[in-house]
């Protein structure tokens, strides 16, 4: 009864109001790309209602599946769709909530407008070292990448360069913002950022004919993407359900956008 009343109230009140009067503990673990979204949501919920304790840990998609499946955490995050055997073994219910797209970026002054997958692979392997080899002006290519454990790096490594080797000379920066600053200042730079972070300071050349935009990432026309999922063992209940509901509210979508991802509507 109380829950019904609360969720009815939530329909016309601020999204966080559904947490009023609740108490309990919610543990979240798994995919690292999810962490900023989860942490921000957790922060807002806990400031609204200190009786709810939410912990957010990483560990990767495998950990997310295992811990949620074994009941160690209520929500296990994955950066990939669940495998059939995982669903069968643990009875997991999955909630895709965002698209994480990664675009290769260069300096706006760079004349290169299109790169192929082979060229990207060779550039990051250190085989192509001069911009003129890929149709640009004469000048050494300065490579920029992200730190180990970065979700952006994971997508780039898996989908753009297909897990091929990366030269040790790659300059490592530790955020999308730092990447943009570095590439925007360096006329001979190449790097990669989450699609949500692209602005006028950097240029995203076409990649194998695909243009990196939010629309293309959402429609599937751009393939350097992955969906981000929350997973629960069985249908979510209590605080877990409220948390997942909150992620799908407009406020949740704002958080997702602020973290550089594209929010997905709830699957019916």
């Amino acid at each position: 009864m109380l829950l019904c009343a609360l969720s009815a109230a939530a329909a016309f009140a601020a999204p966080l109001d559904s947490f009023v009067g609740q108490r309990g503990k919610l543990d979240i673990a798994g995919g690292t790309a999810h962490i900023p979204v989860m942490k921000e949501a957790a922060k807002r919920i806990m400031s609204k209602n200190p009786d709810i304790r939410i912990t957010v840990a990483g560990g990767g998609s495998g950990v997310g599946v295992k811990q949620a499946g074994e009941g160690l955490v209520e929500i296990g995050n994955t950066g990939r769709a669940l495998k059939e055997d995982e669903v069968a073994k643990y009875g997991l219910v999955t909630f895709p909530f965002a698209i994480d797209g990664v675009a290769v970026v260069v300096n706006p002054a760079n004349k290169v407008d299109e790169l192929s997958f082979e060229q990207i692979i060779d550039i990051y392997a250190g085989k192509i070292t001069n911009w003129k080899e890929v149709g640009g002006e004469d000048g050494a290519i300065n490579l920029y990448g992200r730190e180990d454990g970065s979700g952006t790096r994971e997508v780039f490594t898996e989908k753009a360069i297909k897990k091929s080797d990366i030269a040790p000379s790659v300059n490592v920066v530790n955020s999308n913002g730092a990447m943009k600053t570095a590439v925007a200042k360096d006329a001979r730079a190449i790097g990669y950022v989450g699609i949500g972070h692209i602005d006028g300071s950097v240029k995203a050349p076409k990649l194998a004919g695909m243009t990196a935009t939010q629309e293309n990432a959402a429609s599937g026309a751009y393939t350097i993407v992955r969906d981000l999922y929350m997973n629960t063992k069985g249908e979510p209940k209590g605080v877990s359900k409220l948390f997942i509901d909150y992620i799908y509210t407009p406020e949740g979508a704002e958080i997702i956008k602020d973290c550089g991802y594209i929010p997905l509507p709830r699957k019916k």
Partner: protein
Amino acid sequence: MDNTSKTPLWLTASALYVSALLASVFAFVIICAAEGLLEGGPTLFTSVWAPEGGSFGIVPMIAATIVISLSALALGWCVSLGCVCFVHGFGGSFASALLLSLLRVMTAVPTVVYGFASVFLLVPLVRDGLGGSGFCVFSAVLVLSLLITPTMALSMESAVAQTEESCRLAAASLGLSRAQNLVFVVLPACGKWLRASALLGFGRAAGDTMIPVMLAGNAVQYPISPLSAVRALTAHIGLVLSSDVGGTAYYSLFVAGGILLLLGAGANLLFRFIRGGKDGK
């Protein structure tokens, strides 16, 4: 009994508290580093860092830390000595006072400010002037030397000021000018302080995280040229800890921390040794 009655209880308590805290930090880092060594083992002491491929070598980072901090020390120490010579013998009194107050102000500048300003001002200059990406050993060394100069210069200055005061009359009666007094009497007498300030500077240079993270490029390779992008141990800890990794990559952080702690402790012990040795005579 005598001692305790003179020392207020709260002073003793806070001294014990601080010592206990420091000891537990030491113990924590050493134990974790030992655990890291057991877990990571020999893979940590190789040259390739590629966690995806199971390589966790941190040797290039150790080399980078040593090269960066020693180069910054060499540069910063000479600049500091120059500042002290300017203040005590070669510069005008107004300019000297100005330089001293500038050095004092500089001790309060947060490293991130140096780092941020350098990303926008120094790095493009290095990139356009010398080539490469601009994020390299050279940039980091320049800014680190700037960072450690005030600490070293001020500690040298306080020693030089005292010594100069104590032998001023004798020097004047021998007909030495202020500059001659400084070069032939005061500086040689201050030798141990000059060395001690170098160790202070080394500790700061080796331990700084922000400057290498922002300016050195963080590529895991040996510092073969001043324009190589390299990753210092401190930068490694900062970078890997901010993201989320497990296993050997995670343990490598504790080993890196342990090595840094040993470097710092080594420098401090050397500092004590030099001071103690000279004081004993």
